[in-house]
């Protein structure tokens, strides 16, 4: 196999950075006689326009010529050379940049002879790879300029409002009857101290004044989701009608549920033991009885079963503590905590303000939790104060349990529908490091508390960020599949199946980390098929294929074999 491109080599002196260590004359001699190499030039700096023009002028027929450049690493200038050559009409698939500076002359400066031998090997490997590099498969995708937003909480509403302002049609689906998500349960929102209506009114106005730019489906239920980035088909039922829509990107903003304490601290058995959200209900109804209130933090969280910090409960309790003081300035408010988490300038001020207003903080230890005392009503709370090492008994009319946010019960079903991973706690998983909204599935973005418990302000921020991500995907017109994702910075080689050789064993289907491989019936037999939009070119499938029928055209087993041979050619 392989292509019959004739190879033109160019070596870069890099103004001495390479040639000072590596004997380029010797490299040139060794390579000129190498089979397949048609010409070889040594230049001063391949990355400068002047040399680049010479380089391009030597390529008469871009399809029949392969370039092997001995220069610096891909991360230094190598990738930029390839991009610049692409602008001159030379496909990156025909250009091999062999790193002989960072990877050779700079790390072997004390051993010029060995470095020269190594440079010859590396360039021969480059020639071998280029001669066996086949053009990758490519599909063009014309993304549908519509976006599906699942969940109409602060994150979903912000995403929808941002997108509709950009002229994108949005389908906003929510299982609740009215938008707002968890914010609807709350009287005032921390730390902004506004009501939920005030909080979201501007964005809601944008949505509902958009003249049909946003189709809002309240009380709807998701049925199925198919397709891949650029073209998803989603069906759901709203009322008695079933809808099926086509969208280019999906934003999952399903939020989280409030965990109930499950009998902890005698909740449900003793009058006066409430959860935070039950207290909100009393605030809303304006019926707060009793002026001695004890908050207990970290209820059912930061333990072995849920070893995460829900990040919002401290702020919520501080807000509620201050609200109790608003109702009755003489109230006695205690917050029993394990740590107070109020990061950043705004939230730290919130904490200091609560302290200044007389909220008292008391630290307890995880293995000696507070005990709620009382027969019919709450009487007091007994707690071991970790800082003074004393048992304390605090008189109380109300005990408020600060429970965390936890993943929705149907998060598993939604993850399955969209092909998302979930982390150890059950929240949707995002890509590692620099891709905080992108998921395993291209074109599906996660924001808000579905990803991790966040305050309203962070949910809004993430919703708007997810909207931008979705817009980036759908706004650029027709794209090659390998350029579809913002996640892929470089052009990849996508997997290709030889259908004659494929036995349909399904190994590739089992290992593909992107669900790109599937078995389909072709001429009576099951054959592996690759969804090129989902494929990211990692090559997992290649290494488990029993007979090599699935390959990365740009980096085939044949090419690697030839590269290995090239390493051993010299001195054996």
């Amino acid at each position, binding site marked *: 196999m392989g292509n019959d491109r004739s190879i033109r080599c160019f070596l870069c002196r890099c103004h001495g950075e390479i040639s000072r260590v590596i004997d380029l004359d010797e490299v040139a001699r060794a390579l000129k006689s190498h089979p397949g190499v048609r010409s070889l030039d040594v230049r001063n700096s391949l990355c400068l326009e002047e040399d680049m023009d010479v380089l391009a002028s030597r390529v008469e027929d871009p399809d029949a010529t392969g370039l092997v450049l001995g220069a610096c690493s891909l991360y230094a200038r190598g990738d930029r050379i390839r991009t610049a050559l692409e602008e001159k009409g030379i496909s990156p698939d025909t250009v091999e940049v062999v790193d002989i500076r960072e990877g050779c002359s700079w*790390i072997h400066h004390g051993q010029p002879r060995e470095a020269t031998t190594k440079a010859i090997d590396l360039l021969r490997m480059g020639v071998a790879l280029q001669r066996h590099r086949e053009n990758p498969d490519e599909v063009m995708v014309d993304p549908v300029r519509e976006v599906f937003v699942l969940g109409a909480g602060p994150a979903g509403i912000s995403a929808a409002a941002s997108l509709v302002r950009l002229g994108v049609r949005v389908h906003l689906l929510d299982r609740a009857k009215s938008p707002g998500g968890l914010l609807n349960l709350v009287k005032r929102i921390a730390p902004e101290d506004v009501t939920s209506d005030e909080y979201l009114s501007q964005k809601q106005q944008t949505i509902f004044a958009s003249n049909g730019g946003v189709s809002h489906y309240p009380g709807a239920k998701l049925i199925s989701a198919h397709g891949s980035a650029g073209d998803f088909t989603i069906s759901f039922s709203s009322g008695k009608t079933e809808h099926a829509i086509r969208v280019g990107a999906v934003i999952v903003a399903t939020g989280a549920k409030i965990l109930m304490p499950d009998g902890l601290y005698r909740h449900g058995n003793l009058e006066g033991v409430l959860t935070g959200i039950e207290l909100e209900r009393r605030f809303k109804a304006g019926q707060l009885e009793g002026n001695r209130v004890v908050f207990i933090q970290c209820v059912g969280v930061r333990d072995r079963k849920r070893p995460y910090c829900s990040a919002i409960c401290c702020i919520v309790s501080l807000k509620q503590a201050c609200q109790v003081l608003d109702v009755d300035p003489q109230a006695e408010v205690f917050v029993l905590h394990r740590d107070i988490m109020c990061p950043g300038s705004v939230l730290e001020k919130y904490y200091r303000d609560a302290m200044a207003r007389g909220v008292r903080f008391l630290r307890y230890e995880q293995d000696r939790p507070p005990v709620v005392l009382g027969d019919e009503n709450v009487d007091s709370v007994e707690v071991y104060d970790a800082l003074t090492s004393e048992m304390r008994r605090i008189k109380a009319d109300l005990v408020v349990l600060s429970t965390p946010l936890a993943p929705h019960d149907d998060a598993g079903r939604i993850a399955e529908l969209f092909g998302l991973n979930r982390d150890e706690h059950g929240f949707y998983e995002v890509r*590692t490091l620099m891709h905080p909204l992108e998921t395993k599935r291209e074109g599906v973005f996660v924001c808000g508390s579905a990803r991790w418990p966040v305050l309203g302000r962070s949910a809004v921020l993430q919703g708007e960020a997810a909207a931008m991500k979705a817009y980036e995907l759908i706004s650029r017109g027709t794209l090659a599949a390998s350029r579809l994702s913002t996640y892929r910075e470089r052009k990849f080689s996508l997997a290709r199946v030889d259908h004659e050789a494929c036995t349909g064993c399904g190994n590739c289907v089992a290992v593909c980390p992107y669900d790109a491989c599937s078995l389909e019936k072709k001429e009576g037999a099951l054959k592996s098929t690759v969804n090129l939009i989902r494929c990211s070119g990692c090559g997992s499938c290649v*290494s488990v294929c029993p007979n090599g029928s699935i390959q990365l055209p740009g980096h085939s087993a044949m090419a690697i074999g030839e590269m290995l041979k090239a390493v051993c050619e010299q001195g054996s």
Partner: protein
Amino acid sequence: MTDRTEDSGNIQVVLEGAGRKIVVFACTWCALIGADGAGKKRISLPATFRVIPVECISRVEADAVIRAFTSGIDGVAVMGCHLGGCRHNGANLRSARKLELLKPLLDTVGIDSRRLFTSYGTAHEYHQFAQAIESFCSQIGEMPPVSAWSRSFVRAMSARGENE
């Protein structure tokens, strides 16, 4: 199991490790960036290793490792992202398991399994890359080359597999 060179009757005294060749499969997301970092810092390294960049180490099949040994290479290093930090949804975890399974098989055909080296690190850990390469190269340098018997045995075995 020890390796013995049975190529030729006459024993050559050569510089320790000279002529040994080592191939490094480095993933372009972490190990290759680490290699690049080591280059930028101009850390002096032994010149016996050759890097083959791969998109992800999950691309490196057992066959590629075996083929390296049969074509005359004395050490193979597979270097990828931290386990749990793979850019391809944990594909490197599966690869790590596969390579561990390969090691005893290498031992059975007379190729010391220490000749297959795996390491997982992040992109900015150039010092880790340099240190791993340095120790692996010196380890391979202290070992004799893979015996010609092992090379031809494995070659014959894999040729038989292809003919069947």
